[in-house]
């Protein structure tokens, strides 16, 4: 009984502590979200979001303009990929040349599962 009470108190504490947070939607703006997914061509190890290079700053203005024009995220990514190549987006496409990238870990997972199945159920 005491355990149950302690448990309920713990849950209440957790819920209450969340009231301290502002419960608005995830607030990074669209520009930030898109620019976090783009690579800076000048400082190539950084995202456009992090980079302070001229290119990155111009990109952020461009993205902002395109959002105001009503373009969707996908349209913006496609436009930039057309200008600069697939490299500029951090999210690799799911196309023929990337298929191994996306599927190989899953194939390995299934393979591992089969090994365990063999070990546990077959002797």
């Amino acid at each position: 009984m005491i355990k149950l009470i302690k448990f309920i108190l713990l849950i209440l504490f957790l819920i209450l502590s969340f009231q301290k947070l502002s419960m608005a939607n995830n607030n990074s703006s669209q520009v930030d979200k898109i620019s976090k997914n783009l690579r800076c061509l000048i400082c190539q190890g950084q995202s456009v979001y992090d980079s302070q290079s001229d290119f990155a700053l111009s990109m952020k203005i461009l993205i902002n303009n395109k959002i105001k024009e009503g373009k969707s995220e996908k349209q913006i990514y496609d436009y930039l990929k057309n200008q600069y190549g697939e490299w500029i987006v951090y999210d690799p496409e799911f196309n023929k040349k990337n298929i191994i990238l996306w599927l190989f870990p899953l194939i390995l997972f299934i393979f591992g599962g089969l090994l365990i199945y063999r070990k546990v159920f077959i002797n």
Partner: protein
Amino acid sequence: MKKNIFYLILLLFFTFIFSVFYIGLDKPNFYTPKEVKNSSLEEFTSNELFSNEQLNSKDIIENNKFTLVNIWASWCVPCRLEHSVLMDISEKANLNIIGLNYKDKKNNAIKFLNELGNPFSKVLTDPDGIISISLGAYGVPETFLLNNKSRVIKKYIGPLTKDNILEIKKIIK
């Protein structure tokens, strides 16, 4: 026998990985966007540097057989180096040269041209840098050689060299 085959495959696998890494060592790890063949320059409007009037790129380009669009800025050191080359070709060849002033202050740009000379028939401005992005450029200096239909014949990344100029001269003949 099964064991031997397994180990052989394992060895081959690692040899393959090794070869890929070996070849990969020679590749540059810095990315430069590939040149897209037969691309066209997107149409853009911009304010002229001196007169502040709004001009359309298409109007300027279609009146000339060849146009050279040079993206430059007063704060860009390599641009200073290539400027003499630009001056040279503006005097010697019959070529319409347009300057696109990238993320610059009007006063500094005018001072730059007064100091080093103005090879441009028109100087357009790109204060936010977004026109350059629409052209597929990402830094300064970059130069495009276009025909009268805005098709990109040649693109140069970095300051123009004397060899580039010879190439341009050959093309426009």
